[in-house]
């Protein structure tokens, strides 16, 4: 994990020993902050995992009851799954194209911004696909409260989509930082967004399998 320089170190301040110490301290603080945001992402993902574990266990309990039936999942979900997995790959390409020393405006950053934008579009396509799946079910007369299977389907997919939206917001921000002139850009933010986004793909893969097998 490393980062690009965002603000040039004030050369005048460096001449003074005390200011130098302070600047060394502020570098140490920045490094701490980066480590903390990395921990924060993992801790947050842990909490999200726990929430979906709770939903899953609710599903396992509920499937033992009398009115548990079966719904046919809309086929667009297969396509959605591919789209989200692909978006994970495109973001990974973007992440790898940036090196520790890449700066805003460099070729690497331009390349990365293209791949991030592509990821963003795929993310939006996934959400549109999920929406299409809901519409498909509604057209068949299957609503949230129709049966327990459909209840779980709508709840799981909707809450996952909410989390994907948070990822999309982060991607929009990233794309903005990568392309805007005179902007600073932290690689750690990129790394953390990537971790979150990959996790969303993995989570969806799990949820999709769960829905396929149980609903």
């Amino acid at each position, binding site marked *: 994990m490393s980062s*690009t320089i*965002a603000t040039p170190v004030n050369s005048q301040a460096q001449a003074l020993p005390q200011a130098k110490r302070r600047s060394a301290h502020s570098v140490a603080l920045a490094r701490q902050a980066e480590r903390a945001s990395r921990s*924060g992402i993992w*801790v947050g993902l842990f909490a999200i995992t726990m929430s979906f574990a*709770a939903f899953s*266990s609710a599903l396992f309990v509920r499937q033992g*009851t009398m009115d548990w039936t079966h719904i046919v999942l809309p086929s667009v979900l297969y396509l959605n799954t591919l789209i989200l997995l692909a978006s994970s790959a495109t973001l990974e390409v973007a992440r790898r194209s940036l090196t*520790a020393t890449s700066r805003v405006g460099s070729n690497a950053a331009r390349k990365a911004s293209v791949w991030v934008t592509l990821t963003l579009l795929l993310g939006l396509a996934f959400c549109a696909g999920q929406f299409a799946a809901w519409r498909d079910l509604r057209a068949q007369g299957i609503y949230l409260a129709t049966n*327990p299977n459909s209840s779980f389907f709508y709840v799981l997919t909707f809450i996952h989509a909410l989390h994907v939206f948070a990822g999309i917001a982060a991607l929009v921000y990233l794309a903005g930082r990568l392309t805007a002139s005179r902007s600073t850009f932290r690689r750690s933010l990129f790394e953390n967004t990537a971790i979150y986004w990959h996790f969303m793909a993995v989570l969806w893969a799990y949820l999709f399998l769960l829905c396929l097998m149980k609903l």
Partner: protein
Amino acid sequence: MEESSVQQAHVHAPPEGFLRKYVFSLDHKMIGKQYFGLALAAVFTGMVLSWLMRIHMVWPLAKIPGLDLISKAGAPGGIITPEYYLSLMTMHGTLMVFFVLTNAPFAAFGNYFLPIQIGAEDMAFPRFNMMSFWTTFVAWAVLMLAFFIPDGPPISGWTSYAPLSAVGKDAGPGMEYGMSLWGISIALFCIGSLLGALNFIATTLDLRAKGMTLMRMPLSTWAWFITSCIALLAFAVLLPACILLILDRHAGTSFFIPAGLVISDRMQPHSGGSPLLWQHLFWFFGHPEVYIAILPSMGIVSHILINSMRKPLLSHKVVIYSMMSIGFLSYTVWGHHMFLSGMNPTSALAFSFPTLTITIPATVLTLMWLGSLYGARIQINSASLFALGFISMFVSGGVSGFFLAQPSIDIYLHATYFVVGHFHMVMGVASLFGVFAATYFWFPKMSGRMMNETLGKLHFWITFIGTYCIFMPFHYLGLIGNVRRYQSFVDDFMQPYIGWHKFITICALITGAGQLIFLFNLIYSRFKGEPAPQNPWNATSLEWTIPSPPPWNNFGDKHPVVYHDPYQYGVKGSKGDFVMQDSPEQVIVSGD
């Protein structure tokens, strides 16, 4: 990772303007105080509610002046109806468990002192921190709103068992809109707590000062850290439960409502849900919540006791590992709340075993405190009195847990006053004693002024004797067979014991009034107390190396470096019998 490639942290300026400084503050100290204020408001509301319940129970026809202004239907002419009694009980439990026992020892003091004790400038994510307080505040406001709607607060109890909590107005007054407000409030509370827990964990892991290894963290910080790990998992499960409950109530789903359910002569239009599912999800949160309430107090009390004894506990590590085991085991025991729920009897046995296992680390902790106290020349002041009171309450309340943990005994004791006495002492009062100890101990640091010791000791003795008088008889009433949550005594066999209840009510009124001494002391000392020095208790941890009250960035231009374990007492230091954590001097153990 090259040195040059790291971005510099922007040095932020002190906040200016009323809104940035006092309302939407990013400063962990202000946020800690905000949590403390919210908990204070909630605890006095909750206390008044318990007064009303106690008065109604023994004088059912007593007119409470002004109560009919709050609820015409619930208290016509100021006389509390049986349903309104249940509303008061629900709100008492919800306010106390969520907004007092979670907020005060964990969120309030943790926010204020965790960053300082590890030598950090602030929390890892100050904006999340602000959001977590304001989400919690909105959760509180939404809950309180239930008092002022025509429907009134819900009558479901703080556990809100399905299916009655899920079916809406057929379940009784308050169950239509009041219950919805409860669900929304608790869901919001979960979000606020999750953000807070995330912040605490990242801060503890990554923002420690140079030399502050994990094992050098004070026990209070350890307790807040472990608590935040528990809270992260617990609230992450309660949030989905609340979402499913709200969907059952408003979207027609049937997660918790079984088929063919008739309530108030009306067939409920739901199918096949599982009421037990709610209990599983709720108690998977609910039992760890008990430890969210008590663990911070354990850490705070250890921290304060060591300071008053002027010597470390028998083993720093054993205390930390015991708290960790309690945290871990708290996830394996939720079923002991459900022995009588119709759950498979074999699983009752499976839940009983870890429940009894939890008593091992709890006992180890108690022995650590008592063993260290043996032969110690303890300095008696308000803080150490409350710390000792905590141990007393924890033991007295904990012992009844041995009985309740066994399914065969619990069949008799379940849902009696025995349980009420048990959890009020071990979770409620013990945890609050930790909060009182923390307040007397850290008030000088937070406000720059000392609290009045005479008033503090008076407050302690009234509270200590008072709470024993209230909650000890609960155990005996429970053994007799007094069922909890009844608003009056319909059983003939209870008639001879009404005198006991009257005694409890009078004790509750006196003890509650005694809390006004605390409130007065708090406000009076804030403005008129003696100015506090930087380190009034000759303590060793980092919060005492900075001025009282601390500047906005805690350590100013100093960057603390830690050289010692947190509790170098009973040693020969340049300042006395202690060596501060950031003092580079060598520790010389002084022989007696």
